[in-house]
């Protein structure tokens, strides 16, 4: 296997790893608070679940970018020859998602956790909590967008 393909795989791994870490920390933080709120009032399960799901998207975005790399290099069937330059390009293209997903997932989880605590006291305000958490997600979406645009424009 040549260096180019290795770099491409490293990029994919970073994207899904970064997004996955961000999301699992975020969803975990939110879940802890959600369990506390549900312990007080099991009827709030639905609302807290919505909020807990929000920081989960970074992992999905990371997965998407990784899969994009797989499709681009046709890794599952017959790997296309990837030059060293192209491989490095793919690696760098994955970084916006990897870094953005990692950090934004954690912070979105913190906002989601606080919003879940808010729902515990004011159950009707779940919509506002969703929006607050979505503010953080913007930067994961932008990272994803950039990674995809980079990947689309790279010529193997």
């Amino acid at each position, binding site marked *: 296997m040549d260096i180019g393909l290795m770099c491409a795989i490293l990029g994919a791994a970073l994207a899904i790893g970064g997004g996955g870490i961000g999301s699992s920390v975020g969803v975990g933080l939110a879940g802890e608070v959600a369990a506390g709120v549900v312990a007080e009032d099991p009827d709030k399960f639905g609302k807290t679940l919505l909020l807990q799901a929000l920081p989960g998207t970074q992992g999905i975005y990371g997965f998407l970018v990784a899969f994009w790399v797989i499709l681009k290099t046709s890794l599952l069937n017959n790997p296309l020859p990837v030059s060293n330059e192209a491989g490095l390009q793919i690696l760098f293209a994955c970084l916006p998602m990897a870094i953005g997903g990692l950090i934004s997932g954690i912070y979105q989880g913190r906002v989601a956790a606080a919003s879940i605590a808010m729902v515990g006291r004011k159950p009707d305000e779940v919509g506002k909590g*969703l*929006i607050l958490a979505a503010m953080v997600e913007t930067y994961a979406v932008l990272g994803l967008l950039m990674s995809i645009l980079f990947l689309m424009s790279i010529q193997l």
Partner: protein
Amino acid sequence: MAVAGLQKTQIFILQKKARKFLTGLQALGVMEITNLQDETPPPAELARRYQKNLQFLDEVFPRPRGFIENFIQVKPVVKKTQAAELLQKRPDKTLAALEKLSAEWRAQTTAMKQLADAAQKQELYAHFGLARARKAARLQKAGALFGRVPVKKVDPEKMQVLRADEQTAFVQIIFWRADETAVRAELAESGFEEVLLPLQKREYFREVVSLKWRLDKLRRKNAELRERLARIHAAEYTRLAVWTEQLTNENALQQWSAGLAATEKTSFLTGWVPAAQKKKLRRYLEKFSGELYWREVEPDEGEEPPALLRNGVTAPLEAVTSLYGMPGNKDLDPSPFMAPFFIVFYGLCLSDAGYGLLLLLFAVFLLARFFTNLTKFGKKLLILNIYCGLSTIAVGLLTGSVFGLDFNTLPWPAVKNFFLSLKIIDPLNNPLPLLGLSVGLGVLQMLAGLFLRWILDSRQKDWGTAFLDSGCWFIFLLAIFGWAGLSLLPAGRSWSPAAVQLADILRYIVIGGAVFMVLTQGRHQKNPLLKLGSGLLSLYKLSGYLGDILSYTRLFALGLVTAVMALVINYLAALTGGIPIIGVGVMAAILVFGHIFDFLINMLGAFVHAARLQYVEYFSKFFEGGGRFFRPFSWQTKYVSLE
């Protein structure tokens, strides 16, 4: 359209008529009363008894809950005619019977628990036997300990194992009294748990049999009681629930009307009536002629009427508005102005025709199934989802995404050609058109927001702000984006010279606008240098507008996420299809769960991000909020939904 006008109304009524009047007003449900004391007064004795017994029935026979019930509060539905019929006879006898039975039920459950505990203890003692306990009690210089140890920690030299199961050994230990402390310390380390055997008349195992027999007898009695309760539950639950509501409400009305007393003989109430409902109220007030005096008044200085939104087709968007907050009295109701944007944005984010169809069916199903139980907000939200489902189907067809299918693999040429003929954008191979469309929609929405601000400022006759701020910015940005748009057009067409000319004009407007802005935006400052400085600084706002517009690229990115996830799911499913024997099952599971997951997570994302674009990018241009909901005085039920 927009915010409904609300009339402040004051009513003076004879105190003895106040309760009757209030009851009718509650049924009418058109007026918000602002001087009611408690929102929910504490229930009186009888109402409390009814509540208690109803809750008891709910405890014994909890209603089955599906997953949906986590999101929608479901109450039994009672038709109003049925309720009137049920209200003819107060089920006091049933209540008395229930009270007796519930006391009996509680006594039985406590007794059963005690018996079960006692039986469990005696079973434990039975491992050792009463004879040994008696012998041990007679020991003088030596002592005996009985207890449990984990099987792994048994030390056969020191302990005599009497019985053992897989994990626990029941052991006896004989020791010299002189060594007791040392022995106990050593035992504590091995995880020994002492069992103190009581000296009683009857052998332990006999006691177990007797206790279990009593427990069984009690269980049978309890089952009988449960059946009797079930009969009451089946026959009388609805009647009890309706009466509980009725009594609670009567009691509340009593206390409310007492709280409204103003003088010795009269009561006073004040509140808001929507202009459209005034006639209905007046007709009701006329029934009490001679007993009341009423007048319509202007709101006091600084007093804000509550907000009631009144929209036709765009009413479902009120759900999105009310999530943010109600319009204040200087605001426009933004619902109709964001309707096209929200619905299109949602479609772009979910972006798959198959998921759009799912969303549509899902919303229709929930509406049909839970109609009476839904709050007004819930209904609006679901109808909004029907709109959004339709727009998602449209976007999906135009971008060629239907459950992520590759149309070329479809076996039916007619279907394949139908889908291919509709597909006019291919975001996967050429992302720029859709990206451009997202940004273009952003520009459009921002200009719409600034235009609304301009209109609002003009309506408030704040001419300075209207022409020097909002109007100026609107024209300036319109010119900038027009210019930018024109420069992107391809050259060499028949209309190209006209476009170039227009672009030139727009360029002058942009330059002129910038100069005008620098000269006017600092007009609040006194120092002429500062005037110029803050004028220049105001152009910096442009970068803020640019940032707002870039935020709309999320529409493209989120749309791509849904579509590509759907592709990936199909791809993975196809990979597993080749596995022998279980392949088809795995493939089906991946397809079903994968698509449901993709649908749900992106549905949430589409709603949240479409709403965010309205709140953060759009509302910030023209909408302030801070109003409060109009809550007409009406009957709020807790245990049943009246239809």
